[in-house]
């Protein structure tokens, strides 16, 4: 993985998110989104360490993970706009984006839920004789969900090839991590007998290096690793914050947090000309994506319950 490939991913996620926020404001995206702005290095670094046939589970703040695993930005944007051409045919939207062909087993809107799903998938692939690794993303808030702690236990007990990626952005919605987590995040993971490391989640290369080691360990049959990636959410928990004007972070804190920008950190590793070329390529890609999404058809209301069952049932 070269510096420009990592840069391309963080820049793509950043610009995708900025455009998506714009489409929320203009009403093209209804319901709002949970922006990933500021946390891009984690998705980019983790997914760069994975093979195409490895799988991920994602969160309600999942656009970055799905894009980093290779999803088509045009179909992703169409999904956010609820279009038939979207990744999930407009049935999932922002919090449920999935691309099974790329190993994206779905963004999940219930905090902490997907850790156990990733563990089950990774266990199943191993049982089928495949050396697939699962990476499961979740936030610091999920560290207080019992279901996730249960999943750590199962994964460590059974040496399941999974990498747990905790994106510690300092807040569970508005609750500061120091008000929510007793003890330490990595301490909790170590208690289950798995190695746990704190990684600079603003630097894509550091995330890539840590994840590569964890993936190699998982693939060689030595079980799960836990990575706490420290990061900062530059934008709102959800775009509704622009209306509610929640006040839980000081101007000073925001300024300090935003000063370590993963796009700038990785961008500084590229020659200016190359960086400008990547930026231009991404703008063109996202212009095309916006055109594709805006031009796509809305689903037919008569098909509202399509895909509910594997074998169609008559709905009353």
């Amino acid at each position: 993985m070269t510096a420009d490939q990592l840069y391309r991913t963080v820049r793509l996620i950043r610009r995708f998110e900025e455009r998506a926020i714009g489409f929320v404001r203009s009403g093209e995206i209804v319901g709002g989104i949970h922006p990933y702005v500021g946390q891009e290095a984690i998705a980019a670094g983790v997914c760069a360490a994975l093979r195409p046939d490895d799988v991920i589970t994602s969160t309600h703040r999942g656009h970055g993970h799905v894009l980093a695993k290779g999803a088509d930005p045009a179909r992703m944007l169409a999904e956010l706009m609820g279009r038939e051409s979207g990744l999930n045919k407009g049935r999932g939207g922002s919090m449920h984006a999935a691309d099974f062909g790329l190993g994206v087993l779905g963004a999940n809107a219930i905090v902490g839920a997907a850790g156990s799903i990733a563990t089950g998938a990774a266990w199943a692939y191993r049982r089928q004789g495949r050396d697939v690794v699962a990476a499961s993303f979740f936030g610091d808030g999920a560290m207080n969900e019992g279901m996730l702690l249960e999943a750590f236990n199962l994964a460590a007990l059974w040496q399941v090839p999974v990498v747990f990626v905790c994106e510690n952005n300092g807040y569970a919605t508005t609750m500061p991590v120091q008000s929510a987590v007793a003890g330490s995040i990595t301490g909790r993971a170590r208690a289950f007998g798995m190695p746990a490391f704190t990684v600079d989640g603003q630097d894509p290369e550091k995330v890539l290096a840590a994840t590569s080691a964890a993936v190699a360990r998982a693939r060689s049959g030595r079980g799960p690793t836990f990575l706490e990636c420290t990061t900062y959410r530059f934008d709102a928990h959800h775009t509704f914050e622009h209306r509610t004007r929640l006040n839980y972070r000081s101007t000073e804190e925001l300024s300090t947090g935003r000063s370590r920008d993963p796009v700038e950190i990785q961008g500084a590793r590229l020659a200016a000309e190359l960086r400008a070329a990547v930026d231009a390529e991404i703008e063109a890609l996202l212009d095309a994506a916006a055109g594709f999404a805006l031009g796509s058809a809305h689903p037919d209301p008569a098909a509202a319950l399509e895909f509910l069952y594997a074998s169609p049932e008559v709905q009353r």
Partner: protein
Amino acid sequence: MPKLSYLKALNRALGDELAADESVFVLGEDVRVAASNLTAGLADRFGPERVLDTPLSEQAFTNFATGAALAGLRPVIEFQIPSLLFLVFEQIANQAHKFSLMTGGQCTVPVTYVVPGSGSRTGWAGQHSDHPYSLFAHVGVKTVVPATPADAYGLLLSAIRENDPVVVFAPAGALGIRDDVDFEQLGPVPLGVGRVARDGSDVTVVALGHLLQDALAAADELAGEGISIEVFDPRTVYPLDVDGLAASVARTRRLVVIDDSNRTSGFAAEVLAVAAERFDLVAPPRRVTRPDGAVLPFALALDRAVQPGRDQLLATIRAVLKGER
């Protein structure tokens, strides 16, 4: 013909599917030693990766099964206690059930959840005696409640082969039922197809699971009085065999439902609503259920007092024949 017990039928279905399909595996608490007997003999036959003993981590292992299903396996989870389903309702109703639609049909989640010993087992009190099939029907999770050993075998087989999540409730009161069964005739029973367990012309009694025995006994008793009861066993709570039910009620034009779950928003309420919408009845339909919001008390007399029973059923059938509300 040899006798087959209901519990042995479930065990046999599980063993047959494990043998027939490498992607099937069983997980749950104490499945290796088969504490409930559901998995008796299976760990020795199939090994620890096909019969996977789990720690007491219901929420995680229920989602673990969803993940395994997304990766191509067909998990069967055993829950030893029906009330555990309240604990994992999120993982079944909000995760497994929703994945297919939310992903636009990119995946299916073929997980089977089996509860051998649902409802009252006598003396297990408030947190071990629920029979929560109506909850799953309400959210649209496929839900079956077999009444006979042959149906226990056939419906579990179909549930495991189904590409959607299916909850199989095996009522405690049915586990010991033994029937003469021709093993050659055992086979899958389709989901969503009920059966007329006894022909009759005066009243259709809808009965699920162990209550089928009570309905058949009530029909025997009333036959002595010249009253002809048709007993309809829906077998599947969701999807409900509305057409089969309609055909039965078209013959009898009277309807009583006996349902071992709470009254408000319960299964019986659904059947009565279907009757109000679709059936041409000559008397108001009635239901025999647990009371609203019931919690099963411990003392035996109290436990029995809140469960629907044969005496209530007989009184209700007689009331319907008189046209009473």
